[in-house]
């Protein structure tokens, strides 16, 4: 009898997983509403009747916290194109996290968002839900780099998750070659680029040189601004060379804006040429892009300005 009982248990145990073998989850995404296509598939044209505004922040939506709703309400009151600087949906950028945490907040502005991909998105293999959620707004699926025009500015979006890319981010990589070609094709007076991991940072993670070859390419092309997130703080640097030396004539000004909603983190010792630092607050960076200059303002979620200034294109 004992043997018969164990045999029946054995059969039941084997058959149960077979019956449930098709573990399938199916749902609907928001409708893709792409902007008008540009000259080629990797370049999107964004209509800008007056001097355009770019609103930027990363490290955004956490279902355990409502801070992303606070910055989303700020976006409700601001016109402009939105740069979501990566780590947009915590903890792992899953489709559920995008739909339940990002979509009700910053997702209200999805169709004017040009995102970049963060390291948390890659906690889901290939960052697939990121590319799905943003439809064609994030460039070609699984690459993560693309460019668009904003007024007279050329805006380049790169993927700084170098370990997730087949040939990384070094000089000669696919992304680097694309950047070189893109910059050669779009010779504008003013250029802005953004990705997730900052080159220079006084925050918890510190400097990250993985995008050094890209920064050098942008510097050689005369780019003005680089935006990044990753650190849960706000920081502004003076115009710098790829080696971190001050260069007011040709240097790139970097803004770190990881203030979209994720809990803030403390700074370490200030890095050289760090000009402004704020932590413990949420907000977005507003960049008004004139034909040959730009104004910046870091706007807190209560509407007040925490940092502002003006820069000239090279």
């Amino acid at each position, binding site marked *: 009898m004992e043997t018969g009982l164990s045999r029946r248990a054995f059969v039941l145990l084997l058959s149960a997983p077979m019956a449930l073998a098709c573990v399938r*989850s199916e749902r609907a995404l928001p409708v893709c509403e792409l902007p008008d296509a540009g000259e080629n598939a990797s370049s999107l044209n964004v209509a800008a009747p007056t001097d355009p505004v770019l609103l930027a922040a990363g490290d955004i939506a956490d279902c355990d916290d409502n801070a992303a709703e606070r910055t989303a309400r700020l976006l409700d009151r601001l016109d402009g194109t939105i740069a979501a600087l990566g780590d947009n949906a915590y903890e792992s950028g899953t489709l559920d996290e995008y739909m339940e945490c990002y979509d009700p907040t910053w997702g209200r502005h999805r169709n004017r968002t040009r995102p970049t991909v963060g390291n948390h998105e890659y906690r889901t293999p290939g960052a697939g839900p990121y590319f799905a959620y943003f439809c064609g707004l994030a460039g070609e699926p699984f690459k993560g780099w693309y460019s668009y025009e904003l007024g007279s500015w050329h805006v380049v979006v790169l993927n700084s998750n170098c370990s997730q890319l087949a040939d990384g981010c070094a000089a000669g990589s696919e992304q680097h070659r694309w950047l070189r070609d893109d910059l050669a094709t779009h010779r504008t007076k003013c250029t802005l680029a953004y990705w997730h991991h900052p080159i220079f940072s006084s925050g918890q993670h510190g400097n990250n040189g993985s995008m050094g070859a890209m920064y050098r390419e942008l510097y050689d092309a005369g780019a003005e601004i680089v935006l990044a997130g990753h650190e849960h703080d706000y920081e502004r640097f003076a115009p710098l060379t790829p080696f971190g030396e001050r260069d007011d004539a040709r240097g790139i000004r970097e803004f770190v804006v990881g203030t979209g909603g994720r809990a803030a983190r403390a700074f370490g010792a200030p890095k050289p040429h760090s000009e402004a630092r704020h932590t413990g607050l949420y907000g977005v960076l507003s960049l008004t892009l004139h034909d040959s200059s730009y104004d910046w303002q870091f706007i807190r979620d209560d509407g007040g300005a925490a940092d502002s200034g003006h820069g000239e294109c090279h």
Partner: protein
Amino acid sequence: MRWLALAGVLIALPTGAEPRYSVAAIGGYASEGRTFAIGGTSAYRLGFGVRAGVSLPKLYLGAMVTHHLGMHDIATSPGLSYDARYSTTLFGPEIGYDAPASRHLRLRPYLGGGPLYERSRTTVNGSVSDASHFRGFVTVGVVATYALGDAFVGVELRGVLSPFHDVTRWTPGAFATVGYAF
């Protein structure tokens, strides 16, 4: 050194019994902690497999293989198709200690490890990303079995630690087992 000494003590325990070989089927469920709370992607979930080993008689040496069915995630909207498939297979040796709790009941805490293979294939609008790869894992667990003659049934609680990108992922699971000792 302490572990080596412990292993020596275990092996040297007076036995009075012959080594017994066993083979068992296992089936259950495992998932990363956060996915319990909010759903989402998991390459684990339902899993089944086989464990075989020898009890000496208190030192247990064996091996197991477990395949987790993971999930098939599909989302659609006009102009978009998203299809992601994930699954995980773990295999490797185990070492445990067979502690009799009563005449029929036995508890076996164990430690294991080896490679796991995580399959992940995502398609977005026809573009495919295959991020399948091997990585190492360590598992700790305890198996409680109830003897029914030479056969046995039981339950297992298991935790799998594995590096995953920039984090170490902890995946708890619960399994049922049924087997036979020779």
